[in-house]
Every structure is written in structure tokens, then in C-alpha cells.
């Protein structure tokens, strides 16, 4: 069976000073049915833009310049506007970071889910309502009948995110993209939502692309992970492989700088410098100017892929050259 989704050389650019600057740069990955694939990276690394590219929702004036997105054999980038509309929400559903603002504030929550159903399926309002209430129950919203008519502002952040998840699930999508689904929530609520996603995956065999900056969330939920830095994937592999034995200097730095893991009284590991803006990204390895293991040619040459056991891939000159274990 072919993978559910194959993304190859996806490149999304934004205009700046008369040229088009890539914010997603030749990103490639495949997703198998039923797996949770995480895109992890710091803000501005292009992970959210990659997700929006999958739905062809890149905000103007950005646009997808190159690459292909193949969903079950169909090239998403070749679809017409109307066909694409049918894919969105039906084949690929998405939930967003900010449940507070991602729901239309003047439309009752239930109606928003009903709209999502009726956009793609010919069902009566009553049937859609029934389905929505059932979905609400499924995602753990207490008093689903009552909550159906509630406006978003009347719900807590956690409940809103559950409504978002219900909306995303309403048409049984093949793929769910969860863009920082728990970042804006309190820890206890975050745990509840993560638990819900885990349940959904277990019960429905849901395929999920999880976009997050939190390696903890990745570790709890994802089967495979791709680490992005400055528009490119720098390392990918099984979650445990990548987190427990990171190869790329950036991944290593990231893992070591998590304070919760650091013993008290010891200085935290730091990655020097900051992520440069897309206009100042180096030509070669994007991490070259912050890398502790930088080589003379890192900044000029794009690193080749180095594949280790269990498809653990890394793009780093130093690793390829055997200079890093």
C-alpha cells in the first residue's frame, strides 16, 4: 500500500525586496496511514507554513513555488480551486493553536461544526446536528446538547479546542493536521487534549501530522518526527531515535537545552545566537552560523542526507564526514 501522503521538495516562498524568499525549502516527507508524524522546530522554522501549504492555504502574498503533495495518488497542487475546496476539511482537516480565536465568535459552536459537515456531505440540518452532538460527546464535551448552542466565548479554552477537534473529525478525514494544538492551554488541559488525541488515534486509526515546538509533546504522541530548522528538515526518524540519540547539532542542542531535564545548579546548554530571518539564511547548511561543529564549507554547501538505521536521516556535513558520532 502506498503511503497516505507524500510530500516532495515542497517550496513555499514570500516576496521580499523583489525576490522570492523560501520559508519552506524543499521539504519532503511521507506519512503512513495511522501514524502520528511530528514536525518540530522553533518559531519561524516553517513548520506551520508547511502545514498550510498542504491545504494550499498559504496566506498572500506567499505561494507554493515548487514540489508536489500527493494524497492517495492525487496531486493536491494540481487540483482546481473547487476540487481543493472539497479536499479541505474532508480529506485533510486541521486544528489550530489558538482555540480562542480560531472559532467564529458570532456563530454558535454547534453550527460551526454543522457547517463543516454540510459543506461536504448532503445531510439534513437535523442529521448534522445529531452527528455534531455525538462528536461533542466523543471528544469529551460535557452536556453536548447544551454546548451545541453555546457561543465560543462561553466555553473554556480546553472545550473550544475540543470543539475544533470535533469539527476536524466531523467528516472522517484521512489526515488530521494539528498545529500546536495544546500550546495555548494550561498544563492540565494540555494533558487532557493530548490524551484525547491519543484516544482518537487508537480508536479511529487517525493519521495525524502534529506540529509543535515542544519535544515533550512529540515524545508523548508521535511515532516519527522531523526536526525543522530555517525552512528545511534537518533530521528525521523515529521519535525515540531522534530524541534519545540526536545526530544533528541543532537537535542535540534543542534536546539539551530543555530546563526540566537539566540538573539543578548546572548551566543549561545554550544554542548560541538566534534564528536569522528568512532573508538572511545561509546558502549552505542553514544552521552553519550557530553550529558548534561547523566546518569550513558548511555555509556554502547544502548538506547531503545521511541515513542511519531505522530510516533515521540527517542532513549535516559533520555527521556525513564522521566528525560527530
Amino acid at each position: 500500500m502506498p503511503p497516505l501522503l507524500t510530500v516532495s521538495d515542497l517550496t513555499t516562498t514570500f516576496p521580499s525586496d523583489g525576490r522570492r524568499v523560501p520559508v519552506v525549502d524543499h521539504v519532503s516527507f511521507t506519512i503512513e496511514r495511522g501514524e502520528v508524524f511530528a514536525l518540530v522546530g522553533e518559531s519561524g522554522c516553517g513548520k506551520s507554513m508547511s502545514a498550510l501549504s498542504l491545504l494550499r492555504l498559504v496566506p498572500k502574498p506567499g505561494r507554493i513555488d515548487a514540489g508536489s503533495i500527493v494524497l492517495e495518488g492525487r496531486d493536491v497542487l494540481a487540483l482546481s480551486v473547487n476540487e481543493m475546496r472539497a479536499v479541505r476539511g474532508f480529506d485533510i482537516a486541521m486544528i489550530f493553536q489558538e482555540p480562542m480565536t480560531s472559532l467564529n465568535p458570532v456563530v454558535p459552536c454547534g453550527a460551526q461544526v454543522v457547517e463543516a459537515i454540510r459543506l461536504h456531505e448532503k445531510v439534513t440540518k437535523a442529521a448534522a446536528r445529531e452527528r455534531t452532538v455525538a462528536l461533542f460527546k466523543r471528544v469529551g464535551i460535557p452536556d453536548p446538547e447544551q454546548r451545541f448552542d453555546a457561543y465560543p466565548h462561553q466555553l473554556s479554552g480546553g472545550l473550544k479546542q475540543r470543539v475544533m477537534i470535533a469539527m476536524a473529525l466531523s467528516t472522517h478525514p484521512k489526515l488530521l493536521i494539528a498545529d500546536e494544538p495544546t500550546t495555548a492551554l494550561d498544563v492540565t488541559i494540555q494533558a487532557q487534549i493530548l490524551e484525547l488525541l491519543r484516544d482518537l488515534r487508537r480508536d479511529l486509526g487517525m493519521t495525524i501530522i502534529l506540529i509543535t515546538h515542544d519535544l515533550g509533546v512529540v515524545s508523548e504522541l508521535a511515532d516519527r518526527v522531523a526536526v525543522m530548522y530555517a525552512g528545511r528538515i534537518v533530521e528525521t526518524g523515529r521519535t525515540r531515535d531522534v530524541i534519545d540519540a540526536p545526530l544533528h547539532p541543532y537537535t542535540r542542542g534543542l534536546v539539551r537545552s530543555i530546563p526540566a531535564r537539566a540538573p539543578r545548579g548546572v548551566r543549561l546548554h545554550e544554542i548560541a545566537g538566534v534564528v536569522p530571518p528568512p532573508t538572511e539564511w545561509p546558502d549552505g547548511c542553514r544552521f552553519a552560523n550557530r553550529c558548534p561543529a561547523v566546518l569550513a564549507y558548511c555555509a556554502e554547501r547544502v548538506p547531503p542526507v545521511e541515513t542511519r538505521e531505522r530510516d533515521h536521516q540527517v542532513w549535516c556535513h559533520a555527521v556525513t564526514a564522521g566528525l560527530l558520532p
Partner: protein
Amino acid sequence: MLAYVLRRLLYGVVTVLGVLLFLFILFFSVASPDNMARRAVGEKASPKVIENWKKEHGYDRPLWPWQDPKSNLLFDHFRKALTFEFGKSDADSAPIVERLKAGAGPSLTLTVPLFVLGVLIGVPLSLFVAFFRNTYIDRMGLVLCVVAMSVSILLYIVGAQFLIGKLLKWFPISGFDRSIAVIARFVAMPIVVGLAAELGAEIRLYRTVFVEETSRDYVRTARAKGCGEARVMGRHVLRNALIPVLTNVVIQIPFLFTGALLLESFFGIPGLGSVTVDAIQGNDFSTLRTMVYIGALLFVVAQILTDVSYALVDPRVRLE
């Protein structure tokens, strides 16, 4: 909500009472009844005539309650205003109510189309430019708007009278006629001028609202669930954007009744705006007082109406 409206009404009453007191000080204390009488009957008039005039208009009593606790102008002023007994014009002794009635029609024939067209043209046009945001249509529209709103209404009036009335001869330069057959040609130019003067600012405001609204997260959600662009604009963006738009519209409604001061005056439309301007020019203090008082009342009403309409259209707003 009820409590809120009641409280706002209470503030409104206080505001109106304040306005009344201010009016009293201005029109009775600063400008004394003697001044008013002389203005009305002329400098040549004998003291006897002035006394008679004052008596006729009820200005022949002491001003303050401490001068005469029973019969004084202050209490009178408040009693009459609060019972909507506007009395007689100082200029020609005609009942002010009659003047208001006579002026309401012409004012409304001007302000209502102006208001309705303003909304009917302003909202779709702004939606139009917002839809084409960041294209040259949008930029051109914005430039036009800024130009339109930067020009003084007086320039519009004089310019339209010269260009449309004098050179192109499309409509009468000014004037008014109550007969249905010809009324349209008189209000056409003032409406065009009024629209030109107000649309620039309105379209710009509405466009900003629409554009801001289109960049909201819920719009992205709507798109992600498969809404087409028309549906996104019509169902999601419009419904949210209508909240500020609606309040901007609602606040104008009460002022339809006060007429358009400059337009009426320059185009010779005998509406309530003209009544006000005439009262100013003709030393018609009682009419002017009435117009200011009515203006203050309408202002208070407009404020409350706006808040209530806000609460009605936006489920997030609860008036406490």
C-alpha cells in the same frame, strides 16, 4: 441589559439636564431677554414695544428662583423642555413645533436616501475593495477614498454647484419643491455631494474592518474546513465585520432627524438643518435652544442605541 439601559438612560438624563442648564446660562444669563427683544423688534423700537415683546414671549419674569421662587425663567425653561413644550419662535412668534414638523419632511427626503445609499453603496464597495485587497483596485480605491475624505464638504458643495449645476446642467443648482414630480431633481445633487463627502471615510473604515476581519484565525479555520471564498466573505467575515459597521450605522440614525446643516443650507432645502442655521442667523434664540436640546436628546439616544445594537449583534457583549 435592562439595568445597563436604565443606567445609561440615567446618565442620559443627567447629560440632558446639564445641557439644559448650560443653555439657560447661555441664552438667558449671558444673552439677556432685553438683548433678545431688541434683536427681535429692532433697534428703533421703543421700550414699550420691547416690554410687550418680552411679555408676549414670556421673558418678562425674573431669571432665577431666588428672585422669585414661584415664577421664574429657570424653572420655566426646564419645565417646558422636559414636557416638550417648545413654545414660540423668537423671530416670528410661530410655534416651533410647526417649524419642526415642516422641516422634518425635507430633512428626511435628504438624509434618509443619503443614509440608505451610504450604507448600500458603502458596504458593498468596501467589501469589493477588501475582496481585491492588495491589488491595484484596492490601492486605487484607497487613494480615492483618502482624496475624497480630505476635501472639505464646502468645496464639494461649491464644486458640485459649479460643475454639475452650472457647467453640466444636470440638476438645479439649489432649491427645493415638495411636489413629488420634481423633488428628485432637487435632492439629487445634495445626495451626490453628501455621498462624496461621507463615502470616502466610510469605505476606508469599513474596508479596514473587513481586511482586519479577513486576517483573523477563524477565517483560516473556515477556509480549512472547505468554505469557498464567497462563503468566507459572506458568511464569516461579513457577519463579524457587520458589528462595527452596524454600530457606525446605528449611531447615525437619530441624526437623520436633525438634518444636514451645511447641505440644506447651501442647497436651499428647508429642513431642520436650515431651521437651525436660520435660527442662528436670525437671532431666533428659542428655536436655537430647541434644536440644541433636541440634538442633545438624540445624541443620548444614539449612544444608547449603539450600545444596545452592539449587544444585540455581538454575542460576546453583555451590557452590565
